[in-house]
């Protein structure tokens, strides 16, 4: 199987399975009728968005999607919080929000165990919970929460691996810059990338791995990638766990004069898009669809309000992005046209 074939196969399948092993449902199946919409509008419901980390385009697009869809459903967003990867802060955020008795909370847990009791309180207070990507420990779909919408992080990890292999023609030395914390989403990407490379591409050797801890993920990645290039002169490619660290890897490659370095990553941020458009270091990335994901989550929250049966696990397929499909991919990811900065860089 060539990388291209593998990528084509990916487009129509979702590799992740739900927390309870549920097989994924496509977001196209999540729909509200006009009557239902009117019913929801009449409720005057309120919602809160509780994020794990707000510092990247992915989070913003997700919030955008949620806000857009909630507005369409006549639901007021009364609070938005950012825990900066800190579970204690997230628990506080949930508690604080509970003072306002929201009807809906859409959230991504930083840590499935640490935040469980706070979500449990919310669930017991009758709040409709919709999760992104991951679910607190011990929660069962249908009773404790409505549904979880996943971006198929595993699938994206696989996609970025195939893209790497494609750009390297299936052989070479690569390095990995991963997130040095046991965080569900980034861990899935890492596992997927590594497994895909190891199983499918025996001629690609992983010669260096380096974790980064933040909060300055760009700088951390810059230092890590620089050291990889110094320590392994023959390194051909570096994978970064999301676009913000990837920018650090770009900067390191530039500084070290490694114009031939191949970078693949996950998440379609503006900067990596520009680099890709210019024919720079970023040869490919696996994109999530945060805007659609947000829209889907908002709709599922509506299911909850109506008491309508919702699928336990909804997943959006991974979207492999290369220079060829960059502009279309942008449209798919953000529901807007790619900005001029990206379009102009295409030539």
């Amino acid at each position, binding site marked *: 199987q060539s990388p291209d074939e593998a990528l084509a196969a990916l487009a129509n399948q979702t590799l992740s399975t739900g927390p309870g092993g549920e097989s994924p449902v496509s977001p196209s199946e999540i729909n509200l009728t006009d009557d239902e919409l009117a019913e929801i509008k009449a409720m005057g419901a309120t919602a809160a968005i509780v994020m794990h980390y707000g510092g990247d385009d992915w989070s913003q697009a997700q919030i955008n999607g949620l806000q857009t869809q909630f507005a369409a459903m006549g639901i007021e967003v009364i*609070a938005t919080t950012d825990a900066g990867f800190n579970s*204690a802060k997230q628990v506080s955020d949930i*508690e*604080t929000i509970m003072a306002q008795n929201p009807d809906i909370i859409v959230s991504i847990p930083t840590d499935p165990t640490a*935040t469980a009791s706070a979500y449990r309180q919310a669930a017991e207070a009758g709040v409709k919970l919709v999760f992104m990507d991951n679910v607190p420990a011990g929660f069962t779909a249908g009773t404790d929460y409505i549904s979880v919408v996943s971006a198929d992080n595993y699938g994206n990890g696989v996609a970025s691996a195939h893209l790497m292999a494609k750009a390297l023609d299936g052989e070479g030395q690569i390095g990995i810059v991963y997130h040095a*914390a046991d965080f569900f989403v980034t861990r899935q990407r890492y596992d997927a990338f590594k497994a895909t490379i190891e199983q499918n591409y025996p001629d690609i050797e992983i010669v260096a791995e380096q974790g980064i801890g933040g909060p300055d993920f760009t700088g951390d990645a810059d230092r890590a990638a620089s050291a990889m290039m110094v320590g392994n002169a023959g390194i051909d490619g570096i994978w970064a766990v999301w676009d913000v660290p990837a920018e650090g890897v770009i900067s390191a490659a530039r500084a070290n004069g490694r114009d031939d370095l191949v970078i693949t990553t996950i998440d379609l941020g503006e900067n990596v898009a520009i680099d890709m458009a210019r024919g720079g270091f970023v040869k490919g990335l696996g994109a999530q669809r945060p805007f659609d994901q947000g829209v889907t989550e908002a709709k599922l929250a509506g299911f909850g309000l109506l008491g309508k049966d919702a699928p336990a696990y909804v997943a959006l397929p991974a979207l492999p992005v290369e220079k060829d499909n960059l502009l279309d991919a942008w449209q798919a990811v953000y529901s807007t046209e790619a900005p001029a900065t990206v379009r102009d860089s295409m030539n």
Partner: protein
Amino acid sequence: MSDNLAVAGRETPLGYFKRTWRQNIIYIGFVVVFAFFAITLYDKGFLAPNNILNIARQTAMIAVMAVAMTLVLSSGEIDLSVGAVAGLASVTTAMAVAWGGLPAGIAAGIMTGVTVGLINGFLSTRLMIPTFLTTLAMMGIAKGTAMWISGTAAIPVLDRTYPAIFGGGNIGPIPTLLLWMLVVGVIGHVVLRRTKFGRQILAVGGNVVAARYSGINTSRIKLWVIVISAVTASLAGMLYAGRLQTGRFQLGEGDELSVIAAVVLGGTSLFGGKGTVVGSIIGALMIGVINNGLILMGLEYSQQLIARGGIIILAVALSQAGTRPA
């Protein structure tokens, strides 16, 4: 950081107020901020008993650490490792509870603090390395150790009693976290205000040479203060573990700045010699109230950050209007 030429004599109440505004500033500021939120957010549940208890719960760990930090700053030192030590202690406690139950967990938490404190103290008082450097280094060491022994994963606390004692439960209507905060606060206040040890801490921070000339064993005092700070940070970590039923290296991350901010806001000098435990707790609560109120207001995170900074400055500046030291 500004030089107050203090005023003395048989002074008027106004004069007294002028002289002590830095001590009182926090109380005025706290009342102003609280009143502001109570009015603007009265329909959003800010004053709901549960929300007030939430603020207390969310602030408890910071407040507990702030009590010890008051002693540290009063003695003219600093401890940047508290947040990381809390994280480490949450991990060691959780691992020990899983292994040997409640007593093992408590012992592991406390021992973490004692060990870290002795290392910090030894480096600072024997090798004369400034505490800023020792505790900054310790911040990395503690965080790294916590990541290492836990494999960066969360360690669940399955024991039922542990969370009930440390941070999870309630006694009657009162959260245990609130009790911990009160107990630690009262002890800290009495120690600093009423005991010989407290007097020595302030003297060492106020003028270390004069303290030595007065027959005070200055390095022993500093050692004790540093150990107390680390043990208290561990306690905070144990409370985190109880509250979240999890030990994790990220718990407490970045708390050092919040803790020091609470203490300085409370009127304790960064330069030593002056400290008030009650002020520090109010300082911590004020930060908690601001965080809570801004979320309830429905502000975005970026706006919350801006507003928080602005409110802190306003609260300090307002309480001080017309009381510029001569």
